[in-house]
């Protein structure tokens, strides 16, 4: 009796569990695939409803409209520029500091660590920060995307923890060969840190690419500095105000061919353009960031 129920139970459990997992995969992927379908469907047809996984009237007009050279195309390149620049700079500066405070003999190691880690737990708040940005003349300035978010204490701890796992002998032998700390950092530590740098680069790049609040706050009066996410945000809030996709279509892009492009369809196309770069990259970095998360989250 007992053995029989035990034999049946695993089959039932595994079937249900597998179905549950597939369910999660569907719930996660469906909205994305639906957006993809809408982005490839003619805008005036989408309004009729009933688009689920496949487009009904195929078109590439929505993507053409995005890349036609207008504001959205410009915003796309601003997004690319801020992401690349900030990631490279932030990675270099953060790992340089991480190396310095990983050196056990460094006299200022403790105080600097405390001063930097403290910044994780407080911030001055919106208004004082806004005034600081204004006083530094960073309002409506491209550098407002790069400078304020340059250092993250969390990323620094992740990199430092990784450096501390490297064999001490490497650094000592570099020193014996006459290399200074900066040389050691550039030619020994950086190349060895590739896995953790990949993780942090992903964190920084995703944060930069997805950011919209800094545009909203600091650069909203300069269209030249608008980013892809901010353009998407503007489209989203305008469509939520009208609250009906039919009403939105009247405000469609004037240059759109025969109403093929509506704000809803162009929003779908921008969503795909805005998420694709990340979705292409992250699965390859999975083994790194899973490890990086564990390094940074508890042991500090």
């Amino acid at each position, binding site marked *: 009796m007992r053995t029989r129920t035990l034999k049946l139970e695993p089959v039932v459990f595994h079937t249900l569990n597998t179905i549950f997992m597939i369910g999660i995969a569907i719930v996660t992927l469906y909205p994305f695939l639906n957006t993809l379908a809408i982005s490839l469907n003619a805008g005036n047809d989408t309004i009729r409803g009933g688009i689920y996984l496949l487009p009904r009237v195929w078109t590439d007009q929505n993507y053409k409209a995005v890349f036609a050279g207008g504001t959205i195309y410009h915003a796309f390149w601003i997004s690319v520029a801020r992401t690349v620049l900030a990631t490279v700079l932030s990675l270099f500066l953060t790992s340089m*500091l991480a190396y310095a405070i990983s050196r056990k003999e*460094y006299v200022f190691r403790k105080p600097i660590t405390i001063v930097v880690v403290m910044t994780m737990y407080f911030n001055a708040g919106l*208004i004082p920060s806004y005034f600081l940005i204004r006083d530094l003349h960073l309002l409506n300035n491209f550098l407002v995307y790069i400078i304020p978010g340059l250092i993250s204490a969390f990323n620094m701890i992740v990199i430092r923890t990784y450096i501390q796992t490297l064999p001490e002998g490497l650094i000592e032998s570099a020193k014996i060969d006459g290399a200074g700390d900066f040389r050691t950092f550039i030619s020994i530590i950086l190349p060895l840190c590739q896995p953790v740098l990949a993780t942090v680069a992903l964190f920084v790049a995703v944060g930069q690419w997805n950011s919209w609040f800094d545009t909203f*706050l600091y650069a909203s009066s300069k269209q030249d500095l608008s980013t892809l996410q901010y353009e998407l945000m503007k489209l989203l809030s305008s469509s939520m105000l009208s609250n009906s996709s039919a009403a939105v279509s009247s405000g469609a892009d004037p240059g759109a061919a025969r109403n093929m492009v509506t704000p809803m369809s162009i929003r779908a196309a921008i969503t795909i353009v805005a998420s694709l770069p990340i979705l292409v990259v992250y699965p390859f970095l999975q083994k790194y960031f899973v490890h990086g998360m564990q390094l940074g989250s508890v042991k500090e």
Partner: protein
Amino acid sequence: MAGSPEMIPSKQAAPQVVPKSSLWKRMSGQKQLMLMSLPILLYVFVFSYYPIWGWTMAFQNYKPARSFDQQEWVGFKHFKFLFSDDTFLMVLRNTIGMSVINMVLGFVTAIIFAILLNEIKQKLFKRSIQTISYLPHFLSWIIVTGIVANSLSVDSGIVNVLLMKLGFINEPIMWLSEPKYFWGIVGASHVWKEVGWNAIIYLAAITSIDPSLYEAAEIDGANRYQKMLYVTLPGIKSIVIILLIMNLGWILDAGFEVQYLLGNGVVVDWSQTIDIFVLKYGLQIGNYSLATAAGIFKTVVSITLIFAANTIAKRFGEDRLI
């Protein structure tokens, strides 16, 4: 002090001179390390510490046109006003309410997901599910709220379509225009976005549980669920406690983006959080002092909770958090 003037200085000097010179020596050998950490120190002081000075605004009737010594000092007037202001008490309620919902839902779903995913033995399937589950974490809140708004839309949103096809409702629900659904929608959006990401840490903790514990439990006749309950859960208990305590510190951080992006005039009484309050009073209405006071309140509560949490975690015998 006046007792033996020659004795005391010499006694103090003797132990000081030796370490000081060696400290100096050590420092001069570390010029490169110092240069390497200098830019970041400057950066942290300018962008994290210096703005704290702006907190003085909360104790003034701050007028941008006046210089610092011309400002009128009013003490705790703005703080007192905040706690008698219905709008602030409302956003405080919303913030804590959504925070607690997000936290409870976030923990429960991530732990359940991790435990169930751990039961999947087929490697490739497990890995694929895990990879898919991270996906929404990398999307911006703009995209996620767009997806949420689409899914919940009245015309052809998938949620209404499914509920109607399954016969649960007869006509579509206007999800985003009903204040009573707002907190739940925010909580569900967080779960959708973060459940896979949050599970990473639990999955790692589960894989580090000693397999012999499971074998011993099996010999004792434990079934699958008993093993989950008496081996897996205790095995991840310490990490759950650490993360839970750590998250308590962020109780006033219910998020800003979701509420700002999904909120609308109809649900405003239930959607606004402290961050939105600060944005509205500070940068839109121009009441800098009041907005700064609200921001200070938030930061002070967070820091207090984090340090309390740190102490509690130590008492639990866990690793220090900071």
